[in-house]
Structures are given as C-alpha cells and as structure tokens.
C-alpha cells in the first residue's frame, strides 16, 4: 500500500475507532444505524489489514517502472489531508450536539412526522379529555414513595440526571414519572400520569422572536420552553420537540442549558397544540450521554 493510501486508511480507522470506543457515535446516529457503523468499521479494518498483509510483499507501487498514475504525489497528499478532516474536526471540537441556534420555529410542538411516528400510531395526539375505550387505571406512580430511579420508557436517552454542575435546584417532587419529552404528546400511552419528570434544553425566546409568532398562538406561553431534538437516522435529520414551561420565571436560567423538569403535565388539547408542564422543580444538569431522542424504526 502506498504511503498516502495507508495514511488515508489509518485516518479513517482512527476517526471511526475514536468515536466507537469513546461512545461519541451515539450522539450522531440512531440506534439502528449504530450496528451498521460498527460492522462497517470492522469490515474496513479487516480489508485494510488484508491489503497491508497480502499486497505488502509485491506492492504495486514498489516498483517504479510503471507508467500508470494514481494521481501525482501532490494530489495524493492533498487528498490525504481531506480524508483526515473528520478526525481533525472531532479532535478539535469533541462530541457536539444541536442547540437553539438551529431552531427556526418554536411556536409548533414538533414536526408532524414526529407526532405521527410509527410507535405512536395508535396514540395520535388528542385532546386530553378525549375518553378512551379502556378504563383508566390508577396513576402508577403518584404515591409519596421515594422517587424511583428514573428510567425512560422509550428511546435510548438516559434519564438519570447527571447531578454535577447544578446551578439551580428546587426541592424534588416525589412520585413523578420519568418520560422522554416526546412522550408528552402521547397521553393515551400514559393513562393517569400527571406528575412527570423529563429532560431537555431550555429555549428562552427574545421578545423580538416572540413578536414574530402568528397572533393566533398564545404568545404568553412562549417565554420559557423545553426542547429536545428527535432524530430518525442521524443528527442531520433531527427536529426539535417543544413543551411549554409554566410557573417558572426565566431568572438566571440560560438558553440551551440542560435541565431536568418535574411538574404537572398538561397534555396538548389538540393536534398542533403545545403540551405544557406546570413546573415544580427545575434542575440544571450536564448534557446527557445521548442528547437526541429517537423515533423508533419498525
């Protein structure tokens, strides 16, 4: 293998290995894509190894009498630098995620594709008062028992709040049911649940941004929002899901802070409306290991 080609291969292997071993890949691609990436990385590593071992002894480029070209040396090394760009970017910035900078419209709860995703096909967003055919069981977790270890019902995102870097903390409310933010648009999946705990990032629109919202939307509700990106395949197709946070002043809170919210869940009255949380407790946390929620691919 010629040196440039070898460096290119090693660059790719290093990039993939750093992300896989370090776990950073989970921040960029959906769970169902991850095994594809792992398999492909193993395949690529195997091929590079075979190429190096098998073709080493009689390397095509070891002899200089050929008149074929694989591009001149300068081009090869320029291309080699291009191959190293993903590794450079990752080493320079580390694991990254999307923030409020990419949010275009915060007046809608989420893209329709998220709200009508497959896993929720039997539970389209409906008015909270819509009667269901099944009897509503008693709330599953509203006693005064100690708060259970939070486990998200869906999605890979760990609910476990990472308690470090807490800057704002209210008294914990016992009995809250941990729910991924997206689940707050599917009340029929969680009958009887009113007190919830969820994780997301803060969106604090400026007055100028609020003024641009269509007048039919209650602007008073848009001063403090919780959002989280939901991906289908990878972070490039991610879209934010919002809920309104009520009963809490912006105060010293900052845009894009990761927080755990506990409070009373007010489901959206209809399709396209915002779900709300009457906030009892807000705790600033570190970014979760997997910042994106995922729509299941069935």
């Amino acid at each position, binding site marked *: 293998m010629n040196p440039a080609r070898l460096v290119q291969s090693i660059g790719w292997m290093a990039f993939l290995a750093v992300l896989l071993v370090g776990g950073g890949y989970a921040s960029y691609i959906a769970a169902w*894509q991850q095994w594809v990436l792992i398999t492909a990385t193993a395949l690529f590593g195997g091929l*590079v190894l*075979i190429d190096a071992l098998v073709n080493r002894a009689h390397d095509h480029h070891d002899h200089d009498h050929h008149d074929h070209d694989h591009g*001149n040396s300068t081009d090869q090394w320029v291309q080699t630098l291009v191959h190293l760009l993903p590794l450079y970017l990752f080493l320079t910035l580390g694991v*990254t995620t999307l923030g409020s*900078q*990419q949010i275009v419209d915060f007046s809608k709860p989420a893209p*329709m594709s998220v709200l009508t995703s497959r896993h929720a096909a039997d539970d389209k967003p409906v008015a909270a008062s819509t009667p269901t055919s099944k009897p509503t069981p008693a709330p599953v977790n509203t006693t005064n028992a100690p708060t259970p270890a939070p486990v998200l019902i869906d999605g890979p995102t760990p609910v476990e709040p990472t308690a470090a870097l807490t800057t704002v903390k209210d008294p914990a409310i016992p009995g809250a049911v941990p729910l991924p933010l997206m689940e707050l648009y599917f009340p029929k999946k969680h009958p009887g649940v009113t007190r919830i705990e969820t994780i997301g990032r803060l969106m604090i629109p400026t007055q100028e941004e609020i003024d641009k919202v269509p007048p039919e939307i209650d602007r008073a509700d848009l001063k403090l929002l919780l959002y989280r990106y939901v991906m289908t*395949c990878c972070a490039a197709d991610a879209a934010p899901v919002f809920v309104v946070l009520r009963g809490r002043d912006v105060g010293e809170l900052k845009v894009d802070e990761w927080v755990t919210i506990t409070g009373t869940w007010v489901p959206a009255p209809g399709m396209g409306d915002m779900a709300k949380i009457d906030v009892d407790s807000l705790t600033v946390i570190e970014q979760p290991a997997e910042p994106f929620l995922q729509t299941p691919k069935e």
Partner: protein
Amino acid sequence: MAVDHLPSTSAGPGSYVNRALFLLLIGLTVVLFPPLAERKPWHDSFATYFIAIVLEAVPYILIGSLLAGLIELFMPSTLLPKLAKRLGLFGIPVTALVSPAFPACECGVLAVARGLMRKGLPLPHTVTYLIAGPIMNPTVLFTTWLAFQDARYPILRAVGALFVAITVGFILWRMDPRRILLPKVSESLAKGDDGHGHDHHHDHDHDHKHDDTCADDCHDHPAPLINLGAALKKPGAAVVIDVTAPVVAAKPRRSFRQTMGQLSANVIDHFLEMAAFFLMGVFIAAAMKTWLGSTGFSDVAASVILAPLAMMLLAFILSLCAEADAFVAASFSEFSLPALLAFMVFGPMFDIKLLLMYRVVFRSWFILAIAGAMAVLVLFYVLALVPLLDAGLTAMGIGRAAL
C-alpha cells in the same frame, strides 16, 4: 502478486480544479475551526451535521464499494454486455426495474455503478441504475411508507424514480460515452485494462510469468476485457460486441490469497477515491444546513410551481440519506403531495454530496446537464403525472395505511 488499482481522478485535465477545491476545503476547515479557538454555537451545529452525515453514510459507501469489488472480481465479464445487447433499448427499463437487485442508497450507488460499468454495462444503463437505484431500494420505499403511513407515497416515489431514470437512459442512448465520462475513466475502459490505467504489458523487465501457471508472484492480468470496451460503445450504434468471440487468453486462476488481496485493494480504492469527494459535499451540505436550514421555504408552500422547485432545492441543499428523507419531508406538512414527492424523488438523484461524488466519473458539463434534465423531469412528473396517478390510486382505495 500485484493488484490492479483504480485509475485516479486526480490526474488529467480536471485535476487542477479538484486540487484547488480540495485545498480550499482544507483551508476553510483550518480557518473556521482553528485548534483551541473559542467555541461558538455554529461550531457545534456544523460539526454535528458534518459528523452525523459522515457516520451515517460511510457504512453505505463502504458496502457499495464492497459490492463493486465483488462484481469486478466475480461477475462473468461477458454477462452484462451480452444481456445489454440482447435486450437492446428494452434494457433501459429492465435495468431500472431490476435495480433493487443491487440495493444501495445514494452514497453507495456510485461505487456499484462503477463496478457494473467496468464489467461492461453500457453507460445509459449505468446512469439509469444510478438514478433509479437509491429510490428503488426496498428499505427506502419502506421508510417512505413508515413516514407517511400512506401507500401512495412509496408507490408514487418509485414510479417517479422509474420515470426519470428510464427517460434519462433513453436520452443517453445515442450519446458518445467518451463525451460524458472523464477522459481518465474512458481511457481505462477503452484500454480494457480493468482500470489499471497503464499499459503494463511487457514494458517492464522484471521476471514474471504471464501464463496460467503463475502463482503468487505473478501479476493479475485480467481476462480479455471486451466488456470494458463495451461500456464505451454507443448502445444505439451498431454494437460490435461479439460475445461468442473466442477468449484471447485464459484468465489466470487466482489463489484465495490473491483474490482477497485484489478484493481488498479494489474496495479500499473505491472507498478512498469517493470518500474525498463525498467529504467535500458533506462540508458544503453541513454549511448550508447550519446557515440556511429550511428558512423561508415554507413561504412558497402554496405555489403550485414554486413549491416543488423549492423542495427540490431544499433536497439538494440538505443532502439527506434516502432512508431518512421521507421523515423530513413528512415534517413539511404545509406542502402538497407533488411538492413532497419532488423532494423525495429529486434528493436521492442529485444533492450537494452527489454533485461532488459524480466528479469521480463524469465530466462537469454532463453533471450540470443531467441535473437540469432530472429537475425538469421531476417537475413534469409531479405536476403532470402525479395528479393523474394519485387520482387512480385513490380510486383503487390505496391511501393512508393501505399497505
């Protein structure tokens, strides 16, 4: 043993342009992302989009490269030219219809197409496969249904892909492939050197054998490659492939070790060559997503003509994976069925990353011409044919959750 490598696109008339583009890309990266610089929000957005697209697409480029490597190594050299000759013009729609037999998403399809072309698939057929393949991929059609829960979307998407791919294939039928392919690619196909790109027969003086008895220490001289010349024949012209012609020289039997060596070399060559252009495309796509996003596109949702055009432009900019783009399309609930189909049909055929990847094989004028042709065809399809087809499907009771 020596291995046959692919011809590089970094040589030839286009090499200066490519070199300049690559240098610009490297320079921009260093300027925009200097080490230890203060981190800004757009750094995070850009890097997230860039790395996400790379991680999502790389496995598929690799799978496509592997498929191409296997085709080059194991597909009988006379098969594709023979089929193409027998089927004649009918071979174009057949290629489009059987494209799911070589399933690849838009990132991997170019590698597979190169492999097929190097095995003698004529250029019009190759381009037909290139256009239809990503959408006809069963996974893509399934995720389309998943996103909309409506059988009309995958059906109309597949029909749109077939319509555009077959039409483009017919348009290319009488064109000279030498005017379309990069000179280096044409050269390697015309020489019949399996892309070796050099006349390595006997102009060197080392001691290797050229008979069937060679073992590990001999070159892998490919079989007589009349099929590679076939890829350059104009299908509409008198095709002169004589598939019954006697083989000029017997193909040397490869040992397992040689086979693995050749396969690994082929796959790595395919992957590395396309990955450089792919990265350039991803860089631009990430920049567009970071600074433009889909801002303003909703303003034209009500326009019959502008909405599909805007959605095609958006698909070009966003450069999404064909397996995921339906979910994004579904989020544009204010757009009509034709506009959403324009997004989903045009996107896997032509986006920023594909524009750059096509430069591995095609001349610049052809890339622009085919992009224009596809845009016009998609527009015609969604505006003229989709309403009719949609009415027919609805009359048949095919609609939401009908699959």
